[in-house]
């Protein structure tokens, strides 16, 4: 069966000035502009953010540390698929532990995804990266600083209840045990 879903975009979010962008999740959208809007709605309703980036999943080249050591064949194939003689900027992200979200490491200049990957591994050799991600800077759509207010400010002073504040589980247990809910004392 063919995939009828919209394309996927990776979402990166910066929680505060000076903090690194972190991979936060994925959204579906018909195009990159809608992806940025969806990212805002899905991921920035509650937590703080100062910047959002979205990148088409197809534009991201990713390898684990293990793959990197033995992927000459694969990388050759990848280079073939995306020939690009021009040098361009690539963003580099890395997953630094199994639990952690991929974090922004920096930028490299390269003429193919694999060349960018190689340059990234060399440039950030001091970081212990489990999985690397590189993508051309031109593939990213970023929230504009001038739009930060309507994008992010409304979520900041919204009041909301944490899930734990609804004592549903306790209430259900009580009902199961006693057949009814005890009134508040």
């Amino acid at each position, binding site marked *: 069966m063919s995939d009828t879903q919209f394309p996927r975009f990776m979402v990166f979010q910066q929680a505060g000035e000076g903090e690194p962008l972190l991979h936060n999740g994925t959204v579906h959208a018909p*195009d990159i502009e809608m992806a940025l809007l969806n990212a805002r*709605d*899905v991921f920035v309703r509650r937590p703080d953010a100062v910047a959002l980036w979205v990148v088409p999943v197809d534009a991201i080249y990713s390898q684990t540390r293990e793959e990197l050591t033995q992927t000459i064949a694969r990388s050759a194939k990848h280079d073939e698929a995306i020939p690009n003689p021009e040098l361009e900027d690539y963003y580099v992200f890395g997953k630094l532990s199994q639990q952690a979200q991929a974090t922004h490491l920096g930028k490299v200049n390269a003429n193919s995804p694999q060349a960018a990957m190689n340059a990234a591994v060399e440039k950030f050799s001091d970081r212990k990266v489990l999985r690397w991600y590189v993508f051309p800077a031109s593939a990213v759509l970023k929230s504009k600083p001038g739009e930060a207010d*309507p994008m992010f400010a409304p979520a900041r002073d919204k009041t909301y209840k944490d899930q734990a504040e609804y004592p549903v589980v306790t209430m259900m247990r009580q009902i199961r045990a006693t057949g009814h809910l005890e009134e508040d004392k």
Partner: protein
Amino acid sequence: MKQALQKPLAQYLIALADDELILGHRNSEWTGHAPILEEDIAFANIALDEIGHARLWYELAAELSDEDKRTFPDKQVFFRPEQEFCCLQFVELPKGDWAFSMLRQYLFDALEAQRLKGLIKSKQKPLADVAAKINNEEIYHLRHTRAWVRRLGLGSKESQRRMQAALDELWPYAQALGARLPGELELVEEGFVPSSSKAFGLWKKEVSAFLKEADLKTQEAKVHEVDRAVHSEYFEVLVKDMQEVAQTEPGASW
């Protein structure tokens, strides 16, 4: 503020609030049913924003009417008889298909944006403050709904057909957005609120150009019912639905 202006201003604010509330309620009907998960979340957020704006306007109205700010919004929403609501029929209409709901939200947001420009400059400071707060969210709503209207208008044959059908149905109702709000005449003179007809003029210019770009045609339409006391056939069921739970156990806490 002059004593004599308190009542008209309260009426004006309640009309603003009722429009936001009923539109928010209608849009909340999409929750769990929107075309994709991301949009489900986004549109539920927008619905919630509108209901939040209604609450802010009701609270301001409470302060002008010697009512308790904490209980007044709930009283208005859950315990007011249907005949006392003063929303436009434009916001009462059933949610229709996705094109209809997106277009209605866009037309509403675009008018609100024009009106908020004036309200932000209101000589009534508390009103201006609330308007500024609301405006921040509205900028985003407009961006979202414009994105959809454009994509559906310029999308497939089917999406264009649905969008045009939605416009044909909504356009006469939308003309009522330019009608004067209760109490407006005196309030405009005092510099408290902007003139609705002026906001509507700017709205019409902007909206017409945008719709044209999205390959959608507007036809000269008669203004549908502008009297906010006259409701559509759909309104009674909507209010009953909205108030049912609260009225089952008044005063229950959640």
